[in-house]
């Protein structure tokens, strides 16, 4: 049956574990008379696996052990802010009073939820310096789409319909051009200067009456705060454009500076980066959007507001309000409420001083790692960084690549940094330690990277064939893309 070319199955799939007749959960018999089923509309068969609860639990327990996680170790993935996810957040989001409320309940029955959302909106406004906030967008990229639609709507509302271009620095996340592309805008790439700032001359040259605005990540993906941030914003404003802030790196700015004060017009937050809601193996995130006063009327609807003022005796009545020139809804219901509860918990436990300490320590940790690694790896834009920095994954006298260094880090028990991003650095290793890591952890990580730089010279094969100590080795990605097996089961394979 099997030969040496048949891959070894480490964990069978749910479908392979299935045994006909087994059930994992049973439900009561109907307590009402059975109605006649619509025979012509019934499905012939339901090819789902048949498993016991024990089968299911053990399967997922075994799978879980194949995962690296923040709970399991240091996860310095640049641009992702893999900070510790406090356990209390999880408990709060699961409080029955929150978890068992329906999104369409009458507002009188969900004042607790609405008060929490209203307060979170207020806090995010205070932290960012914006006039208004929506909590509806589901993720960072979703917030971007919201923001660029608002920018477009703002220009259109002023009768200014000639603007078709979005300026985007070459260090930007791919979501920035993709979000602008989704609404049909033309992308104009703005280069970075030698110190990693937006190139002012190029920016000036690109700014004219056809520009919708600039999408700017600050600190940028090199981990650098733009040294001319006020001038950058001024140049865009001078041509009638707006400035979008990609809030991916807000962790560096909490209590340090408010983007709204700097002149950003609209910005998204990533509750799953800055405010400690977990990444969930890819999601869910949450991407609230803040807007300056002149853009507030364009926010997606609805947002939470006070619909009846309270007084000394009665609390205000919270409800939903529709911004006057709203771009509309960006999803069903009110956003990722469960993530809002977690972020609320986090902010409540920090207060103003605590949030500033978060940013300070995130920046301290990044600069400390940078100081420890500067001699082992080339740092292309070497100045005081914010919460992350980018090293080149190359070693003098060796042909190993950033990928090899990353894979070797796994053998030392660490998650690798982000590879090959930003695109403007060759062999980029983008390192973001976050504030929740101890000096011991940072030192152990730096020691490992320094040792790997040595290994690169003395035993390059060790890196090129890494990882060795993980349950799985390097993958055949070409086979995955060419053979395209995307399902354990395909409808036409039925019975074969």
């Amino acid at each position, binding site marked *: 049956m099997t030969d040496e070319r048949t891959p070894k199955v480490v964990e069978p799939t749910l479908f392979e574990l299935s045994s006909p007749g087994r059930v994992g959960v049973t439900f009561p018999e109907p307590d009402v008379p059975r109605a006649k089923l619509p025979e012509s509309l019934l499905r012939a068969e339901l090819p789902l696996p048949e498993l016991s609860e024990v089968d299911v639990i053990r399967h997922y327990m075994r799978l879980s052990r194949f995962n690296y996680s923040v709970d399991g170790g240091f996860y310095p993935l640049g641009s992702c802010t893999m900070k510790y996810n406090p356990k209390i957040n999880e408990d709060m989001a699961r409080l029955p009073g929150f978890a068992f409320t329906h999104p369409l309940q009458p507002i009188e029955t969900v004042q607790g939820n609405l008060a929490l959302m209203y307060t979170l909106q207020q806090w995010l406004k205070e932290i960012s310096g914006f006039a208004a906030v929506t909590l509806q967008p589901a993720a960072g990229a979703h917030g971007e789409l919201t923001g660029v639609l608002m920018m477009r709507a703002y220009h259109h509302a002023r009768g200014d319909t000639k603007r078709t271009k979005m300026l985007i620095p070459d260090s930007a996340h791919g979501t920035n051009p993709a979000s602008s592309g989704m609404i049909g805008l033309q992308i104009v790439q703005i280069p970075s200067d030698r110190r990693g700032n937006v190139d002012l001359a190029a920016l000036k040259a690109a700014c004219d009456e056809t520009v919708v605005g600039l999408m700017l990540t600050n600190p940028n993906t090199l981990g650098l705060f733009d040294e001319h941030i006020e001038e950058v914003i001024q140049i865009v404003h001078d041509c009638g454009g707006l400035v979008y802030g990609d809030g991916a790196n807000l962790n560096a700015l909490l209590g340090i500076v408010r983007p709204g004060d700097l002149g950003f017009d609209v910005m998204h937050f990533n509750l799953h980066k800055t405010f400690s809601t977990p990444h969930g193996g890819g999601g869910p995130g949450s991407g609230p959007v803040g807007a300056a006063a002149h853009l507030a009327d364009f926010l997606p609807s609805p947002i939470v507001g006070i619909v009846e003022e309270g007084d000394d005796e009665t609390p205000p009545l919270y409800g939903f309000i529709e911004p006057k020139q709203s771009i509309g809804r960006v999803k069903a219901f009110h956003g990722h409420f469960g993530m809002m509860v977690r972020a609320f918990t986090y902010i409540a436990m920090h207060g103003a001083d605590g949030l500033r300490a978060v940013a300070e320590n995130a920046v301290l940790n990044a600069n400390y790692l940078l100081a420890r690694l500067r001699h082992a790896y080339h740092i292309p834009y070497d100045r005081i960084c914010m919460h992350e920095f980018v090293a080149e994954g190359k070693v003098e006298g060796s042909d190993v690549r950033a990928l090899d260094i990353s894979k070797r880090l796994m053998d030392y028990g660490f998650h690798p940094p982000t590879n090959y991003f930003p695109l403007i650095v060759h062999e980029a290793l983008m390192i973001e330690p976050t504030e929740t890591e101890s000096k011991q952890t940072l030192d152990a990580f730096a020691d490992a990277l320094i040792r790997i730089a040595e290994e690169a010279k003395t035993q390059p094969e060790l890196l090129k064939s890494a990882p060795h100590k993980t349950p799985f080795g390097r993958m055949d*990605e*070409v086979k995955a*893309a*060419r053979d395209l097996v995307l399902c354990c089961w395909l409808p036409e394979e039925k019975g074969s």
Partner: protein
Amino acid sequence: MNIPSNLMYTKSDEWFDPATGKVGLTDYAQAQLSDIVFVEITVSAGDVVEVGKPIASVESVKAAAESYAPVSGKVIAVNEDLLNAPETLNRDPYGAGWLIQIEGADPSGLMDAAAYEKYCEERTH
């Protein structure tokens, strides 16, 4: 790197064969992209293409690229075989890996093999 001398080249790494009117991706381009897993030719036979306009979209395991018409003219054939065998672009970029065929085009303004080779060398440094 293979740069046949009978072909003409663009800065966006397409080749054009003045003898047959065929257009394709260069060896340099396929090597940069590495393992190509998807090709979509976005023009059809009968279309009139303008120089510099997109004609095909290519995706590899790690990268994506757009191909542009090296010359203006009328498309007389597209290589349908590529759609089910995109790896042909890696294996035989100047032969079976051709993308489209254009009729009556003017190749002036394209680079010859020597100029293209120099252009490629500049980029690898």
